[in-house]
């Protein structure tokens, strides 16, 4: 269809959907209303398992299956990216990686900030059940942290820093660990992803049983997933050239 016909059709349909949306939204409970029945039960269950961060309790303890599904989506799409962006025959390495002049100040800054970010990332993962944060966010912070090396230094140093194979392996271990803990929960107490370890006192490091462990597993997986993702994209953008432009 021509562009204008397409836009006209979309405008009409979009208008109709918007009218539906307004009709529906008007009947929703008011914006800040205290009507959250699920929250009340989730609250009790979370406190019962001594998990300070209720969001992690819901994520890893009460609705564990959702998180298993989400995390597998992450595994699938990172695998998809590594399949799609693998080196096709007609591409070859292009050695202009050494170029890239970096301001001294940023180089210095980079070297200081890099370890700090990675440390913060790991802290966010391990304290997932206490402070806001958890496996997902911590993994992202660690994943992006290491790429400071590229910003502050050169691409080749980044590549030496993190070859991709161990991270792909790390990703598989994270996903496998999550599923294994689920099955372990099943074997021990007959319920998939049950909270196994005794959840001692509130607020300590090991207070909420499997939530902390699952957080760790997801953290490893997300961190290595992000690493593989960015590695593939960086490799595509900087290193690979199609053979025929390579010769020019």
């Amino acid at each position, binding site marked *: 269809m021509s*562009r204008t016909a397409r836009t006209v059709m*979309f405008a009409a349909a979009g208008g109709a959907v918007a009218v539906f949306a307004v009709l529906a939204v008007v009947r929703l409970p008011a914006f800040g209303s*205290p009507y959250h029945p699920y929250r009340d039960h*989730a609250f*009790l269950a979370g406190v019962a398992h001594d998990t300070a*961060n209720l969001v992690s309790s819901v994520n890893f303890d009460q609705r564990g299956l959702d998180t298993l599904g989400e995390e597998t989506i992450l595994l699938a799409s990172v695998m998809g990216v590594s399949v799609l962006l693998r080196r*096709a025959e007609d591409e070859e390495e292009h050695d202009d990686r050494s170029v890239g002049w970096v301001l001294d100040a940023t180089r210095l800054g980079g070297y200081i900030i890099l370890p700090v970010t990675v440390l913060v990332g790991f802290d966010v993962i391990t304290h997932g059940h206490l402070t806001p944060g958890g496996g997902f966010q911590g993994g992202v912070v660690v994943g992006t942290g290491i790429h400071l090396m590229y910003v502050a230094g050169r691409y080749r140093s980044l590549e030496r820093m993190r070859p991709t194979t161990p991270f792909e392996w790390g990703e598989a271990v994270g996903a496998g660990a999550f599923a294994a803990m689920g099955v372990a929960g099943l074997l021990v107490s007959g319920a998939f992803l049950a909270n196994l370890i005794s959840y001692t006192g509130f607020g300590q490091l090991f207070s909420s049983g499997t939530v902390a462990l699952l957080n760790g597993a997801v953290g490893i997986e997300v961190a290595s997933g992000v690493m593989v993702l960015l590695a593939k994209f960086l490799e595509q953008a900087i290193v690979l050239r199609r053979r025929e432009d390579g010769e020019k």
Partner: protein
Amino acid sequence: MSVYGYLVAFWLVLAGSFGIVRSRDLIHSVVCLSVAQSGTYVLLLSIGFQTKATPPVYGSPPSTPTRSVTDPVVQAMTLTDVVVSATVTALLLAMAVQIHKRHGTLDPDELRALRG
């Protein structure tokens, strides 16, 4: 005031889809898709919001089961969705790179190889 949050959410979803319809570049449509996607986050979180409520995290164990805490369930759903959908967007971008390699162009109008 009460309905504004939901309207903004639906507005984002519609704007994202409109972007895909109008786009001349597949990367542009993938980015518009992620805009539509964040519309659903805004919808979910504004459903879970409660005025004068503290975030659902505690330093010390709460003595009485208080009600003034925002809904952790909605946040858990959105939380995982944000991270995961970024990787799905990355997958779609990788496909766009492949299309560009194969066909040299990213404009859906020119990509007529798919005459169904």
